[in-house]
C-alpha cells in the first residue's frame, strides 16, 4: 500500500491541525492550514511571524572538486559567482531550454552545495555528472526544513539562536546553534516578506520546532499551513511548479512547456558564462529572437467586477484563498492567455492573478479581461497587466 510520509514535525503539526485538511506535497502530508479560516495565518506572514513546515522540499547535497562543474552544467545561473555562504534561486532546463524545475542552491563551503527542488532530481543530476569527481546525496528525508516568515522572524531567531541573524543578508546563509543543536539558516522564503529557512538534521526537528514556538510567543508566532503561504507567494509574484508551469519532464505536448524567459526568469539565465550548459543553444536563440509568452501580474478592476455581480443582485464573491485553476484571459473576444493562480489579496484588497500572456498583450498597463464565475455563469471582468511582484515590503531585502 502506498502511504504518504510524515514530515519530521508531524508529531506537532498533527495535533495543531484543526481542520485536518492535509495536503499532499512530494509524497508527504502537510497541513493545508492549522485553523478553520486562513485569516490569522495569512496575517501572521505579513504582520508577525509564520512557522511553516517545508520539509517535503527535495534536497540534495553535492560535494566534490567538480561540484561547481556539474551545477554550472545543470542550472542556468553562473555558479562560479556564487560565494560560500550565498544562496541562488535558479531554474534548470532540458535540452530544449524548457524548465524542468526550480529551487535554491546554497554554497555551504568551497566544494559543497545544497540544491532544493520540487521534483525528484537525483537521476537528472547523476545523468549530468558523467565523468565528474563528486558525490550527490539525496537528503530529503534526513534534513528537516522550516520556513519562518514575517517581519518578526528575525526577532524570533535572535531570541533563541546563539548568534544573531541580523547580519545575514538577503539570499545568504549562516551556521548557527539553538539549544546546542547545529542548524543552518538562510535568508530565503516563499512569501516575499522578511523571512528565513532553517535547515535541521531530521532527528533534531522537534526540539527546534518547540524552541521556535516558545521564542516566538511574544512576537505573535503562528504555525502556518501551505494555503496561506499560497496567497502570500502570489502577492510576491512567485510561481509554483505544476500550478503555474509544467515541468518539461511531465509535459505531454510542447505547448505545456515553459522557458525561463517566459516565466520572467530571464535574469537567472547567464548566457555569458563559459561553456555548454543544458539548454544553452535553445536559450540563446530565445533570448535573441524574443519570447512569445510572458508571466505577468493581472489586477482585476474592482468596479468592473462589482458591476458583474450587481447584475445578479450580489456583492462580489471571491474565495478568500488562492485558486490554482486555469482561467482564460481575453483581449476583446480573443483569448490571449490564461491565469494559472488567482487569489484575493487581503493586504492589497485586490483580486490578483499570475497570468501567462501572449505577445504583445504582456505589456504593463494593457487592459484585458479575465474569466470570473458569477452565479454559475462565466463572465469576464476587466483587468490590467502589471509587473510582478504585487507586493514587496521594504524590509524584504533590507
Amino acid at each position, binding site marked *: 500500500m502506498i502511504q504518504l510520509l510524515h514530515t519530521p514535525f508531524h508529531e506537532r503539526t498533527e495535533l495543531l491541525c484543526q481542520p485536518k485538511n492535509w495536503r499532499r506535497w512530494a509524497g508527504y502530508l502537510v497541513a493545508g492550514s492549522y485553523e478553520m479560516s486562513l485569516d490569522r495565518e495569512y496575517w501572521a506572514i505579513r504582520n508577525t511571524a509564520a512557522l511553516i513546515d517545508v520539509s517535503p522540499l527535495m534536497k540534495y547535497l553535492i560535494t566534490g572538486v567538480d561540484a561547481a562543474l556539474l551545477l554550472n*552544467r545543470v542550472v542556468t545561473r553562473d555558479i562560479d559567482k556564487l560565494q560560500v555562504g550565498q544562496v541562488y534561486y535558479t531554474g534548470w532546463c532540458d535540452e530544449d531550454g524548457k524548465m524542468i524545475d526550480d529551487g535554491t542552491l546554497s554554497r555551504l563551503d568551497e566544494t559543497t552545495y545544497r540544491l532544493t527542488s520540487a521534483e525528484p532530481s537525483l537521476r537528472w543530476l547523476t*545523468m*549530468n555528472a*558523467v*565523468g*565528474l569527481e563528486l558525490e550527490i546525496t539525496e537528503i530529503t528525508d534526513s534534513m528537516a526544513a522550516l520556513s519562518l516568515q514575517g517581519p518578526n522572524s528575525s526577532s524570533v531567531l535572535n531570541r533563541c539562536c546563539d548568534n544573531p541573524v541580523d547580519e545575514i543578508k538577503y539570499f545568504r546563509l549562516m551556521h548557527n546553534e539553538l539549544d546546542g543543536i547545529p542548524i543552518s539558516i538562510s535568508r530565503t522564503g516563499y512569501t516575499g516578506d522578511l523571512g528565513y529557512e532553517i535547515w535541521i538534521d531530521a532527528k533534531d526537528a522537534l526540539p527546534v520546532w518547540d524552541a521556535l514556538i516558545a521564542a516566538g510567543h511574544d512576537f505573535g508566532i503562528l504555525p502556518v499551513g501551505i494555503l496561506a503561504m499560497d496567497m502570500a507567494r502570489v502577492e510576491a509574484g512567485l510561481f509554483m511548479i505544476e500550478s503555474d508551469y509544467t515541468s518539461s519532464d511531465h509535459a505531454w505536448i510542447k505547448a505545456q512547456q515553459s522557458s525561463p524567459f517566459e516565466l520572467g526568469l530571464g535574469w537567472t539565465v547567464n548566457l555569458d558564462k563559459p561553456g*555548454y550548459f543544458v539548454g544553452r543553444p535553445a536559450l540563446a536563440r530565445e533570448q535573441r529572437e524574443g519570447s512569445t509568452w510572458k508571466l505577468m501580474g493581472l489586477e482585476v478592476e474592482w468596479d468592473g467586477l462589482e458591476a458583474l455581480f450587481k447584475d445578479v443582485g450580489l456583492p462580489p464573491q471571491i474565495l478568500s484563498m488562492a485558486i490554482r485553476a486555469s482561467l482564460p484571459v481575453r483581449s476583446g473576444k480573443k483569448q490571449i492567455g490564461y491565469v494559472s493562480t488567482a487569489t484575493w489579496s487581503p493586504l492589497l484588497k485586490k483580486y490578483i492573478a499570475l497570468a501567462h500572456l501572449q505577445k504583445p498583450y504582456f505589456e504593463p498597463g494593457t487592459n484585458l479581461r479575465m474569466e470570473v464565475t458569477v452565479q454559475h455563469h462565466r463572465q469576464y471582468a476587466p483587468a490590467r497587466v502589471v509587473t510582478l511582484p504585487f507586493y514587496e515590503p521594504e524590509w524584504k531585502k533590507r
Partner: protein
Amino acid sequence: MKTYDAIIIGAGHNGLVSAAYLAKAGKQVLVLESRAIPGGTLVTEEFDGFMADMVQSGNLCPDIIRNLKLARFGLKPKPVSEIPAFISLLPDSDILVLESDPVKAAESIKRFSPKDAARWPDFLTFMEKATKFLESAYDTLMPRLPKVSLSEGYSLAELALDLRLAGRKNMLNIIRVIPMTAVEFLEEWFESEQLKAAVASVGIHGVTLGVMSAGTTFNLIHNWLNRGGLAHQYLGRAGQVTDALVAAAEAYGAEMRLSAEVTSIKIEDNQAAGVVLKDGEEISAQTVLSSADPKRTFLTLVGPMELSPTFVWHTQSIKMRGSVAKLHLGLKSLPDGMAADTTYTIAPALNYLERAYDAAKYGQISEKPYLEVTTSENVISIHFQYAPYKLKQGAWNDKRDTLEKLAVDTLAVHFPELQSSIVKSKLLTPADLETTYSLTEGDLNHGQIMLDQFMFMRPIPGWSNHKTPIDGLYLCGSGVHAGGGISGASGRNAAKVVSKEI
C-alpha cells in the same frame, strides 16, 4: 603553422579511407595515429620473429579499391578461382569443405545431405541478393528519423528501389530474415547439422550473440558482405591492405603522423577547433573526423561536459561487450592436413555454438569455444569466442594460460601435431584489444552489430549520418552506419559527407 582542412583521428582502415577520399578531393588532411604503425585493427605485426594479422583481416569495398585506384598502390584482389575454401572441422577427423566454387562445395555437402547440396546454389543466390541489398544500404546515408529531409528521402527511395529490383519475393524474404536467428534462418534452408552450424558460425562471428539470438541472420549477411562469402577472401595480408591505403592517401596529399595520440578534441562554442595530443601539442582545424569508437570519441575525446545529457546517456548505452580473444601461434611448420591462407571454423553443431555463447552471458570463458582459424605459412591465427570482456570472476591477466590452453586443445583435437610444432604464441585478450587497439571493451566492431544498433540506429538513433552534436566533428569509424568489421564503407561515406560541407 600549417593549417589543415580536416584532421582525422586514427589511421585504421576507415580513417585512411576517409583521408584518401578527402585528399583526393583536394583537401589538406592530417591523419593522427596513436600507435607507431598505421592500420588500427588491420595490421600485420611481428611477435617473436613471426608475422601475424593481429586483429582482423579483410577486404575493402570494391568501389573503394576502384575509386582510390588501390591497384596502383599494390592491392590486387585475387581471382575468384584462388579464393580459399571455408572448412568446418568436425569430430572424428571429418571435414566439410565449402569451396568458393559452388559445384565443389555441393560435392562436399552431399556427403552430409544430398538435399542440402542441391539447395546450395539457391542459397548462394539468395545470399548474393541479400548482400547486394546490404551493400546498397551501406552506400546510403541513413536519415535522422523521424524527420527525413528531401535528399535523405530520395536516397532512401533509391534503396527501396534496389530492394524492389531484387524481386518482390526476394524483397520480402530479405526483410523477413534480417531479424531472425541464424538457426531459424538456416533451418529453413538445410537439414544437415554440420552445414547449418558451419554457416551459422559466420552469423555470430565478432558479436556477443549466440546462434539463437535474434538478428544473427543480419550479422551473417553483414559478415558475408564484408568477406565476400564465407571464407576470408584475402586482398593480401592485413598489413598489405593498410600499406596500400597509406600509400594512396599520401600520394593524394594526405599527411600522416604516427605515435601521435590525440587525447582530446578542442571545442569552441560547440564547434570543433582541433585536437590536443598527449604531449600537449595542439593542432587546429575546423573539421575533425574521428575513427575512434563512438564511446571513446564522445566520452573521452570530446568529454561529456560538452554534450547534452541525453546524448551522453545514449552514448553510454551503446553496447560494446567484446568477447573475442585472438591467439597467434608461431609454428615450425603448419601441422599435417592444414593449408595456408585458409579459413577453418570449429562449429560442429548449432547447440555447440549456442552453449559456447551461454558462457559469455554469465561472464565466463567458453569451455568449448567457437574458433575461427586463419593460416599463413607458419602462423595460425585463432579468433576465439567467447572470451567476455567483463569476467564474472578474476582479471584477464590471470586467465591468459587458461584461454591459450583452451584454444590450443580445441584445435589440437583436429591437428594432433599442433602442440609440438608451436614455437611462440601471442595472445590478445579483450583487455589487450582495448589497451593496444583502443577498442572499448575489446569490441572489434566499435559497437555490437545488433538490430538496435544498426542502420539508422548506429551508433545511436538520430546520429547515423556521420554528424555529431559538435559542429565540424564527424564520425568515420566502424561504430557508425555501414561500419563493423573491415570494409571501409563508413570511412568512405564520412568522406562524402564531409567533402560536401567543407
